[in-house]
């Protein structure tokens, strides 16, 4: 039963991913002109001129002279074989450029998700149990401000505090000596030292909304008769809370992965640009601006797939954790 459900959900992803690939392709085709126009303009800035013959030659080599749907099918059929095409600008296969950055993006998003849960869960429970206490008001106020502050602004403020009060540049994910070093324990430790800032910056918005979700869910549960029954039977307050209402209130919490992950991936793009992190964001922005279409397309496609996978995971977790959810 459960396996059939999972299989069905995975099969559902196929038309979904197809639609995503069409959107990604159309998006990168949307700017007027193509990579060659940008390239020629760039050459023009340094007073070099490309004659028409070599322009046509290049255009044919990159396949830019063919109709859109031919370009699309060529792109997709290569994609299925794991070939993302060549980056015009970097003159390297896109897959060489993309994977490390996507890996760091995923690591950043998942660390943030864990951070968000670790913070939001206890605070949400506290603020529901001690409803209308000073602590609850403080948490609610901070939560509202966290929701209202754009990520990049928070990143800027923290960077400002870092530079002015601690005299440290807090941008980036690695210290300069580890920038190009192969992976090692020392590099990992260095990464952890830098990771907290983007995690906090990215996590605030999601944490704030998850606290609100948890608080509201738990408040709904706390007044149900089964809680009174358990209390009347003499169960300790803590055991009672953890064993029943929190478990029930957790369900909607799990389904939030579905929307928290897309938000994190999105937010990570802007934050990464501000904090100059070596994740997908900055390279994607650059690729978009220079119309390096295969590179930009790969990023748009991979980031979208990441969110689709996030939704899949949350749906499966939900079914596993709550027998009342029907497999349909």
């Amino acid at each position, binding site marked *: 039963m459960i396996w059939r459900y999972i299989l069905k959900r995975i099969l559902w992803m196929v038309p*979904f991913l197809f*639609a*995503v690939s069409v*959107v990604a392709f159309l*998006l*990168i085709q*949307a*700017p*007027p002109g193509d990579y060659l126009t940008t390239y020629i303009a760039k050459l023009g800035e340094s007073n070099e001129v490309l004659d028409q013959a070599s322009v046509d030659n290049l255009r044919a080599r990159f396949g830019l002279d063919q109709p859109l749907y031919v370009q699309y099918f060529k792109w997709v059929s290569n994609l299925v074989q794991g070939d993302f095409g060549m980056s015009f600008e970097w003159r390297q296969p896109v897959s060489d450029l993309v994977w490390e950055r996507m890996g760091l993006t995923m690591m950043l998003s998942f660390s943030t998700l864990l951070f968000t849960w670790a913070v939001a869960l206890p605070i949400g429970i506290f603020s529901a149990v001690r409803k209308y206490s000073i602590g609850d008001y403080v948490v609610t106020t901070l939560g*509202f*401000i966290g*929701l*209202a*502050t*754009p990520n*990049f*602004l928070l990143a*800027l*403020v923290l*960077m*400002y505090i870092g*530079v*002015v009060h601690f005299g440290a*540049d807090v941008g980036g994910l690695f210290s300069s000596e580890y920038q190009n070093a192969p992976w090692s324990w020392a590099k990992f430790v260095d990464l952890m030292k830098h990771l907290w800032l983007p995690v906090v910056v990215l996590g605030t918005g999601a944490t704030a909304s998850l606290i609100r979700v948890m608080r509201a869910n738990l408040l709904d549960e706390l007044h149900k008769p089964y809680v009174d029954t358990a209390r009347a039977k003499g169960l300790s307050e803590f055991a009672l809370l953890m064993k029943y209402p929190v478990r029930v209130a957790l369900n909607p919490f799990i389904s939030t992965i579905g*929307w928290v992950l*897309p938000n994190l*991936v*999105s*937010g990570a*793009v*802007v934050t990464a*640009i*501000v904090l100059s992190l070596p994740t997908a964001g900055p390279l*994607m*922005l650059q690729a*978009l*601006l220079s119309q390096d279409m295969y590179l*930009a397309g790969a*990023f*748009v496609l991979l*980031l*979208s797939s*990441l*969110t*689709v996978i996030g*939704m899949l995971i949350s749906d499966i977790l939900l079914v596993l954790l709550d027998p009342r959810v029907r497999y349909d």
Partner: protein
Amino acid sequence: MTNPAETTSGETPETNALPADSHLPVDAQPDKLAVASQWQLTWWAFRKHKLAQLGLWIIGLLYLLSIFAEFVAPDDPTKQNRRAVFHPPQMIHFVDRTEDGLRLRPYVYEMDRQRDPDTLAISYTPSGEKIYLRLFGRGAEYKFWGLWETDIHLFATVNPRDKFFLFGADRLGRDMFSRVMYGTRISMSIGLVGVAISLVLGITLGGISGYYGGRIDAVIQRLIEFVLSLPTIPIWLALAAALPPSWPIYQQYFVITLIVSLVGWTELGRVVRGRFLAMKNDDFVIAARLDGASERRIIFRHMLPSLTSHIIASLTLAIPLMILAETGLSFLGLGLQPPAISWGVLLKEAQNILSISQAPWLFIPGGFVVIAVLAFNFLGDGMRDAADPYSH
């Protein structure tokens, strides 16, 4: 607007008895409550929400500022001043201590500019001279709403040659306060225009989906799920990167609002669909159908009016998302381009860690963003609670 069927179904004896936890005001007499229209009930429920009212006041103020931006701003927002680069903000003092006693008169202290001979760093120190301000003084000339020329501002220096910087100045010596006022106009209105676009999309698609159900519903729901699952910012970036920077400001403005509203409609579509589904089999709708009312009439005359308050609440909650989206895009340099001024364009100046460590007042537009978004969220929350005065 009162729907007879709805009012009677809402007026159960319990509501008349006013239980202690009812969120309707206790001072309303039971018989007054019984005849109150739906809007009246909504207003009573809203009035109990203190934060929502605060939000309403702040939003009203911000829109007033953006309507009268030219008048409120004491200076031309694009005028550069080489002698005022990174001029710090000046506090307005009111109590003036002169030889002939205390006088109530607004003034600021003049700042002198020095350049360190070694580092060439510029610093400002108060010179002790006072610059007096007055209400409705004369300053830079402007065309009010593009209609008539004037040089009267809400407040200005008594001597028009003096300058003062309430929020400091940026790296080109432009007055930040004036720039923030003009930015308020663009940023706050982008939210409104964007919401108007998503309103049309959301009501049409959500309404069709909920009213007809079946296969159309399934298709539209898949579409909404698809749009929701797309990571917004990469998509926005890709769309915005397609904008040629040479376009005139109003064209950029329109396209940016369009991009921003592409995401906003999904939430609204869901709300409208859910309400339509729930209402489709309500007594008053069935009654209208049995009476032979056309579908158009059922939708627009009977169903939409009882949705209005929900729609307004969802719209209010959608505006801050759009403001944030525009701010983020412009901040990255993909939204509005200078010389257009919006909060995001202003914050772009704060991108450089060197400039903000030298001039922390460049963060002020960010404060406006946070306050505006908070106010909209408070207002929206209050309205959502008040939207259904019959619940609880």
